[in-house]
């Protein structure tokens, strides 16, 4: 177990290093000059060159990357080109909002997805099953931008149940979580359905039925715990999907998380922020996967870490 963890940690670090190198190289190769973005329209060529020199952007690629890495090891992600604030400060101030949204989204997708999957499995082959599976398919394929605006329009503007975007109370959290959750719920519904069908086919289920147990007891005490575990173990892997989703959802709802920060930075070619958010997301994804692997054997003793 320890050896396994050590190996995985080294792998994770290598992945992060690779991500940093690739992102840095892609941003370096962009046919857009960040210095001119900073300097603005009226800057003289002299001002532009001066800013370039001070940011170290006149150095060759490898030197720039080396400096970045050196600072990174000291926990310094640099200063935003446009906002001129420390990237660490910008990310730290926005991280709690993104984490909160992630928790909300996980709750939504589990609640909706597992319920849908359970009902579909029990009613396998019926119209209910088919309707739910079509619904899950729509949930998976609907663009989050559209889902978000639709929810906003119906529940906030027309019905007035929730605030129109923003951040602060649990009521602000519902619609963005739901928007994020609907996508995941589609996946979970499908996984839950097949996992449940698998379990229901097992011999011990037939035994339970033969014993004359009540239908509710069979489903909730014997089938559900076995069917749900492999599905829940997927949450760690979900982190990657979330990181993509928050860019869109946070923008629609005005949610002050790192997705919104990333989107703005991309539009303004604010390289230190793009690098920072990419690394933090990569870290979250690597960590999520690692956790998923570590908890897998606790959930299903048939899995062994080697």
């Amino acid at each position: 177990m320890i050896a396994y963890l050590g190996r995985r940690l080294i792998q994770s670090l290598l992945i992060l290093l690779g991500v940093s190198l690739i992102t840095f190289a892609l941003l370096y190769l962009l046919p857009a000059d960040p210095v001119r973005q900073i300097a603005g329209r009226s800057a003289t060529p002299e001002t532009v060159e001066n800013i370039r020199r001070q940011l170290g952007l006149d150095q060759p690629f490898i030197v720039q990357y080396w400096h970045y890495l050196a600072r990174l090891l000291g926990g310094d992600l640099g200063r935003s080109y446009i906002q001129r604030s420390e990237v660490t400060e910008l990310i730290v101030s926005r991280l709690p909002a993104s984490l909160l949204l992630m928790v909300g989204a996980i709750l939504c997708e589990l609640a909706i997805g597992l319920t849908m999957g359970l009902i579909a499995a029990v009613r396998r082959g019926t119209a209910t099953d088919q309707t739910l599976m079509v619904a899950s398919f729509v949930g998976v394929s609907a663009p989050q931008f559209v889902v978000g605006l639709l929810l906003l329009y119906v529940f906030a503007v027309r019905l007035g149940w929730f605030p129109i975007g923003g951040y602060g109370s649990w009521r602000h959290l519902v619609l963005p979580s739901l928007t994020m959750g609907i996508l995941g719920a589609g996946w979970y519904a499908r996984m839950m359905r097949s996992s449940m069908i698998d379990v229901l086919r097992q011999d011990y289920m037939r035994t339970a039925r033969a014993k004359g147990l009540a239908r509710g007891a069979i489903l909730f005490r014997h089938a559900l715990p076995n069917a749900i575990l492999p599905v829940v173990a997927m949450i760690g892997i979900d982190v990657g999907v979330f990181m993509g989703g928050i860019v869109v959802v946070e923008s629609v709802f005005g949610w002050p998380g790192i997705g919104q920060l990333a989107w703005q930075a991309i539009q303004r070619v604010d390289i230190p922020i793009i690098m920072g958010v990419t690394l933090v997301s990569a870290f979250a994804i690597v960590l999520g996967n690692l956790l998923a692997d570590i908890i897998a054997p606790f959930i299903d003793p048939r899995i062994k870490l080697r």
Partner: protein
Amino acid sequence: MRRFLASTVAASALALMLGMASARADDAVDPNIKQGGAITITYKDDVATLDPAIGYDWQNWSMIKSLFDGLMDYEPGTTKLKPDLAESYEISPDGKTFTFKLRHGVKFHNGREMTADDVKYSLDRVTNPKTQSPGAGFFGSIKGYDDVAAGKAQSLSGVTVVDPYTIKFELVRPDATFLHVMAINFSHVVPKEEVEKYGADFGKHPVGTGAFKLAEWTLGQRIVFERNADYWHKGLPHLDKITFEIGQEPIVALLRLQKGEIDVPGDGIPPAKFQEVMSDPEQKARVVVGGQLHTGYITMNTTMAPFDNVKVRQAVNMAINKDRIVQMINNRAVPANQPLPPSMPGYDKAFKGYAYDVAKAKALLAEAGHPDGFETQLFAMNTDPNPRIAQAIQQDLAAIGIKASIQSLAQANVIAAGGDKAGAPMIWSGGMAWIADFPDPSNFYGPILGCAGAVPGGWNWSWYCNKDLDAKAAEADSVVDPAKSADREKMWSAIYDKIMEDAPWAPVFNEQRFTLKSARMGGADNLYVDPVHIPINYDNVYVKDVQ
């Protein structure tokens, strides 16, 4: 559309020169307007910085103006210069020395009195390369600028503190735009002790002399401005508080405005909802329309064949159906025939430009040796409505035989292509177009049409360089005497007329501003389309529900 009264500027500036500082009458703040109330303004993007030496986008520009002051400013809602922190000023007969008398008793938000030393410190700071100010170049006419810019000196030798309330500027050349330079944010006055206290984070902890002070800044969520009770300009500001909510999509902001939750959507009316808003009489009544110091244009690279032939460039000018393009963007603009926008001093009302005439355009193209047209590329920014406008231009060009392929790219990439001499034959400027830094005709020349901008990484994407016009521009800018400003404007009009003869651009339209406000917002319409304050003039507006 507001009309600029050139003669008024001349007259008022002259009056001030004669020492009539009392002519200000403190801008005649209406004593009947009661102070109080709070408003909410939304923005999609984070506010970059509130440091006046650094902030240079339309969003923080106006916010900085409310936190800080400069020696000069503009009459609210107009392009008319007036002294601000200065009480009066004098210009030497050769136009090379400007002496400003400062107002007494002006206090920074930290309580300390502002003096001439602070003015000098602020200018030394903005020109110091370490500050990385995008506006350093505006101060190039001050003596000693070159040494500071090169890092050889820490202080501008041409700026002298005569006494705590008098400051003198010596210039290397007469500069008619100098009073405007003293009004742009980059010259706004900052207190040394606060700058040193916060260092690179001063932009997050701004302390100035302005009408408002920063009360709260929660990153990514909101910025709150609170009324500066000690503001030197008695009677201003009218509002007690302004809350800027950050991170709101324009479409969400509009929905919130309709529910009465906010007062001004800072990013404007989203294009997709524009017609809906304008066709609803109740909402339309709350829209203020005004001109903007903006021109949208097509550049033609004069160093690349076949655009090195003036006839080809003129033919393109005649081929563009500007009315149709203006219609396409829901009439949110007016067709343009010259580089300067109509609200800019020096705009030539008599100038007719190139009329839309396909037959004549074809004939010119044939004369230029391209009877069957040619193939070329049109670069455009990839956000709506620019790709649609580029397609309309493409169709217009096709009608005279020019087959243009569209390169629809991110803003930074288009800017990079324009700054490369062999990068882009044609560029539609939408989304990156020139909005003046200050309301003076010279501001549309140097960087975008003059030889100085025709360098790698420059903004003169036509690569048009006419040395003769550069000399004429320098001559016009040496006419410093405000009494002769009408003559100076004529000189500038002539320069732009000559540019249109050479046709490095095809001017397409001048964007109009449409500011939507809540029913409770009060104040003259021109405060909501103020040429130097976007979206609105925060210091002078008020709310009706406290009246």
